[in-house]
């Protein structure tokens, strides 16, 4: 016989009566996946608040959020690929587009959304591309040639920078940003649908799941944008202090600080609004399950109030929702407090995903047994790498690496103050 391994055996601990084939088949990568798509959707909604709804206060954030959303979008399929037993066949889902399977819809929704984001970026940066092509014309050398060639491809041959053409760009941006919001919601709503429609899983199956996912997606996306923005601005302030003596033209520390605090305060209002929504929906779901108390409530109750009590009520609700909520609504919000609160919010959303994905598999289909996920920390083969701590970290870090490179080509970090791109 060939060598074999049983997927799930290494990280599943069974207790009491569990069917023989049951394991934690969907582990940490499937926790990461809705987290990532959630961040994508949230970042995009944040950018659209400026483009569509004319929230002028978000202007700087909008550009950054849009490009960041694209970087996250490139990272979103990676957890899916990593969790597939046959990753090289993953693209098959593009060949059988149908809406019977929620995962199949991924092919359609994901492509649609990726293209909308890509083209919105294209319209936002088209003028920049053309400028680059012209600027690089005069430069010599292979590097400049390749760079110019790249920007020429990026222009798609549209060199018209007349006032009329640029006005048209603006109009299309508005349309794309507007269309993108429902598509972003759909992208994430369908991620919720993947879980909510599994009738075999008592914890997952609720029509509220897609809505809960959309709300917490926006929460996590806005929080991540705020946190990343703060980190970038801190870095800029640090540089401003260092460079002030040598480079007189550079942005002044105080200027940067003022702009940062102002923007963070404004964005936090949207964050609070969506947090209330997300929290209410989750609470509604919990109350309904307890009140209606159908057949599966006995096992769900023992999971929610006993086995996963700390994960759900302490880590997710207290640390991830209530504490950051209080921190954010407390008057005179400082940047440091906002950074801490958004970090807690992100942790809370991660715990929510964890409690849905792993929590949903922590009880058996028999309703008479339990399974625990023991996350592999030190991998000893590909399986334990992918489905363990290192795999999750890889997925979490990749979008930032993507963003680093994208930012080299299309500068997206807000240029407050004097510094000019």
């Amino acid at each position, binding site marked *: 016989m060939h060598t074999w391994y049983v997927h799930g055996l290494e990280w599943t601990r069974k207790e009491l009566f569990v069917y023989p084939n049951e394991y934690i088949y969907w582990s940490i990568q499937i926790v990461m996946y809705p987290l990532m798509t959630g961040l994508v959707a949230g970042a995009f909604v944040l950018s659209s608040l400026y483009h569509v709804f004319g929230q002028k206060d978000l202007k700087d954030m909008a550009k950054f959020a849009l490009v960041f959303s694209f970087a996250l979008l490139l990272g979103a399929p990676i957890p899916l690929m990593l969790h597939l037993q046959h990753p090289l066949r993953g693209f098959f889902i593009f*060949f059988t587009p149908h809406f*019977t399977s929620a995962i199949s819809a991924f092919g359609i929704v994901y*492509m649609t959304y990726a*293209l909308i984001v*890509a083209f919105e970026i*294209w319209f936002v940066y088209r003028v920049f591309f053309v400028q680059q092509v012209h600027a690089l014309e005069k430069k010599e050398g292979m590097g400049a040639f390749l760079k110019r060639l790249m920007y020429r491809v990026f222009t*798609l041959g549209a060199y*018209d920078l007349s006032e009329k*053409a640029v006005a*048209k760009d603006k109009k299309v941006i508005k349309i794309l940003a507007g269309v993108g919001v429902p598509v972003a919601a759909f992208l994430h709503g369908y991620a919720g649908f993947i879980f909510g429609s599994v009738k075999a899983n008592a914890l997952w199956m609720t029509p509220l799941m897609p809505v809960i996912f959309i709300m917490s997606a926006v929460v996590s996306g806005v929080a991540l944008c705020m946190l990343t923005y703060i980190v970038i601005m801190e870095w800029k302030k640090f540089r401003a202090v260092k460079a002030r003596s040598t480079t007189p033209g550079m942005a002044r520390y105080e200027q940067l600080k003022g702009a940062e605090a102002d923007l963070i305060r404004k964005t936090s209002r949207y964050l609070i609004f969506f947090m209330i929504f997300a929290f209410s929906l989750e609470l509604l779901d919990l109350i309904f399950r307890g009140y209606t108390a159908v057949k599966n409530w006995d096992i769900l109750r023992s999971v929610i109030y006993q086995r996963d009590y700390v994960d759900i009520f302490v880590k997710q609700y207290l640390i991830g929702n209530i504490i950051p909520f209080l921190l954010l609504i407390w008057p005179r919000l400082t940047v440091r407090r906002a950074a801490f609160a958004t970090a807690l919010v992100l942790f809370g959303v991660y715990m929510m995903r964890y409690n849905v994905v792993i929590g949903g598999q922590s009880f058996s289909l028999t309703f008479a047994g339990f399974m625990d996920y023991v996350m592999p920390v030190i991998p000893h083969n590909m399986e334990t790498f992918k489905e363990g701590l290192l795999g999750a970290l890889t997925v979490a870090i990749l979008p930032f690496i993507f963003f680093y490179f994208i930012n080299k080509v299309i500068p997206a970090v807000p240029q407050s103050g004097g510094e000019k791109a």
Partner: protein
Amino acid sequence: MSHTWKPVFVVLAILAAIFIARTIIVPPKFGIWESGYMYGWHNKANEQFWLNYKAKYKGRDYCNGCHPDKYSAIMNSPHAIIQCEDCHGPAIDHPDNPPKLAIDKSRALCLRCHVKLPYPTSHRNDLPGFLNPDEHNPGIECVSCHNPHSPVLGGMR
């Protein structure tokens, strides 16, 4: 035409690439079959794979072809209900492959039925067996005294 339509061509190019790849990679028998759109996607040709899967258990009639003595012995005993291959293992292409079957002569095999489990409403309750098998010649294979093809006291070895 306005330059704002350029992205549409990129979309069409991507779609074309998907459709071309699909035409090359997806088997021709792949499609929507049987019960319509809802449950229909699959490769019709794959049914053949499962039809052609090789059967390994042949049944007692196959054994009777060469071992009629053993066959008639067990068929006239209380063990007549037990298939030869339950203990002798799957015949596959015996005697070509494998030339010799690996017979399970273990105590554990006999005890699958002959540990007494006093379970009301279950047929297990009716089978002859030991409440505590460890008290009956522990460590010795059952088949060293009992003949599984004639598991009556008269058939003791």
